[in-house]
């Protein structure tokens, strides 16, 4: 393996490949910041560039684009409450309130450091355990997925404050219901489409997130009195002192490990990872807003790295982004999968080594940029609102190129505003929407398999997950006895 690592760094550190990582990170960051353009689009847009490169250089550049775009996405998530990808939704929970309180620069800096650490730890783990993890990913079949998803959905309701549990459940169900619109994943039957072709593929994620988060937030700001903009962000706020940074280190550590492990699972890895990491910090950690930004960012970056495990070792794309990367690899005549490490070790290790390099470059590139970006927050709301409205409209239009979706988004945003105004949390709605399809697909397959006996489904991983699920479900009972002692 050490031989491989040396080969990898030898590949990644050639001058031209370093240049391509830099180019990839920079363009990825910029594209990721644009409305509606996430890592998938960023990589797709770079395909023509990659044609002119050697396989190693091209893939290294693409990996840079990927990280850059993920990072660029968290910027709009924090500054405008407009997450461009599902995996940065959790970042906006605490990041955006920090930005509104004038701490946008600090939130961005924490995000940058946490992403860096998560990505780097992920790359180390990928180097050491790729082979072992591939076999773990194979252990995750429909029953395991079903339980994991039910666990994620339960925690978002159970871990809410006592009086917010019922509203959380209601919005969660609304999200699950929104997710059932479109063609049924198993039988191919159109559902809730009312005969419209626009609805046959279901609602687009960017549409739902822009409507319920960005646009609804702009409308909510309109409801409030014109507030003075948060105070200016100075460079000094960017510097996290050791005293402030130290408590975040364990947060980043745990979240990275968690993120990487979940990211290995093909499916909604990075999203689930960021939500779980956030939930855990809010529940078990000290629950500070800083931790609330650091946890999901470390987790989603570690998970992005983790998603390379099934791609490189099994040839199976774990996410939309790695699916596009798979296409790029195929266009080079590379066949990712069990043979890649044997046949083309320089590619395999080169990509992994470029992940370290990419993370360093990304951090160096973005820290100086943060104060400039944070200036956006000094706009008074009468200018910021039009900006957010425009940002969300372009975002959705560029994603789906469909006018119908814009009308739908406006309608959803008004509904989301009504919910928010009456203290219904919207995060469960989004989580429900994101996971709805995956949940239904896996639950239905599981029940289908259970036909031949439930006992067959009692496997080590399912038993562990069931135990966790039981703990989550029972935790409110314990909470109640401590929260309201009998008078």
């Amino acid at each position: 393996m050490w031989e491989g690592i040396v080969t990898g760094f030898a590949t990644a550190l050639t001058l031209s490949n370093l240049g391509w990582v830099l180019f990839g990170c920079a363009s990825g960051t910029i594209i990721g910041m644009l409305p509606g353009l996430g890592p998938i689009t960023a990589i797709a847009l770079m395909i023509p560039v990659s044609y002119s490169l050697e396989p190693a250089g091209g893939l290294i550049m693409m990996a840079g684009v990927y990280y850059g775009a993920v990072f660029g996405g968290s910027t709009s998530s924090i500054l405008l409450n407009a997450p461009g990808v599902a995996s940065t939704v959790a970042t906006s929970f605490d990041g955006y309130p920090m930005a509104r309180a004038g701490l946008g620069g600090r939130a961005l800096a924490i995000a940058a450091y946490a992403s860096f650490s998560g990505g780097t730890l992920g790359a180390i783990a990928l180097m050491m355990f790729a082979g072992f993890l591939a076999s773990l990913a194979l252990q995750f079949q429909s029953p395991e997925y079903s339980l994991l998803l039910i666990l994620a959905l339960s925690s978002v309701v159970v871990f809410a404050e006592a009086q917010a549990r019922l509203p959380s459940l209601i919005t969660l169900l609304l999200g699950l219901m929104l997710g059932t619109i479109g063609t049924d994943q198993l039988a191919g039957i159109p559902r809730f489409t009312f005969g419209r072709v626009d609805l046959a593929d279901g609602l687009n994620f960017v549409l739902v997130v822009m409507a319920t988060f960005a646009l609804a937030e702009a409308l909510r700001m309109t409801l409030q009195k014109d507030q003075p903009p948060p105070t200016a962000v100075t460079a000094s706020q960017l510097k996290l002192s050791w005293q402030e940074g130290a408590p975040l280190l364990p947060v980043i550590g745990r979240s990275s490990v968690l993120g990487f492990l979940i990211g290995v699972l093909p499916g909604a890895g990075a999203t689930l990872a960021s939500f779980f990491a956030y939930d855990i910090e809010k529940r078990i950690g000290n629950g500070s807003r800083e931790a609330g930004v650091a946890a999901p960012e470390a987790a989603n970056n570690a998970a992005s790295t983790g998603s390379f495990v099934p791609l490189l070792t099994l040839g199976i794309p774990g996410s939309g982004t790695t699916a596009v990367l798979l296409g790029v690899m195929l266009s080079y005549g590379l066949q990712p999968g069990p043979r890649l490490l044997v046949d083309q070790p320089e590619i395999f290790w080169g990509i992994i080594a470029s992940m370290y390099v990419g993370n360093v470059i990304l951090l160096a590139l973005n820290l100086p940029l943060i104060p400039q970006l944070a200036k956006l927050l000094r706009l008074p709301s009468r200018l910021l609102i039009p900006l957010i409205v425009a940002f969300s409209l372009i975002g959705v239009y560029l994603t789906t190129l469909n006018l119908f979706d814009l009308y739908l988004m406006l309608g959803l945003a008004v509904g989301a505003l009504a919910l928010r105004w009456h203290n219904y949390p919207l995060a469960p709605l989004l989580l429900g929407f994101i996971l709805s399809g995956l949940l239904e697909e896996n639950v239905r397959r599981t029940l289908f398999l259970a036909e031949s006996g439930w006992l067959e489904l009692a496997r080590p991983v399912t038993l562990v997950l069931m135990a966790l699920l039981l703990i989550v479900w029972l935790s409110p009972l314990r909470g109640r006895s401590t929260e309201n002692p009998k008078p």
Partner: protein
Amino acid sequence: MIPSGHQLLKLLILGLGAGYLYTAWHIPMDPWTAEELVNARTLPLIYGGLLVTAVLMSWKRTAPSEAIEAGPMLRVAGVVILTLGFLLALQFLNLWLGLAGLLTALALWLGERRLVPITALVITVPMVGWVGIELLLNLHLPD
């Protein structure tokens, strides 16, 4: 008694749940699906049923929401109507030109009167969008 905004909202969600349940019950099924115990209708029916139950359970719950005055309400309605107007105008207007119009109208409606910030906003956003997305990234927008 006039129902409060919150009760109205719950009523609306209840109606939504009922409509959803009705539609879920009428999802067409091919003969294969119809034979299955768990099919295309099952999960939607569960979601809808749970939603209706949850809303009924929370019927008595009052939310500590702030009362909305007519003024801010009007402001929101204005933003929504202006956006709607923009969407209608997109049928015959270029995206970036329409966007410039929307930005101007929104800034004016929200009380911005200074010429410089409005001009800056109106020119920068569509320009960055047009140059970045159409020229540099060469993304094709349908006309």
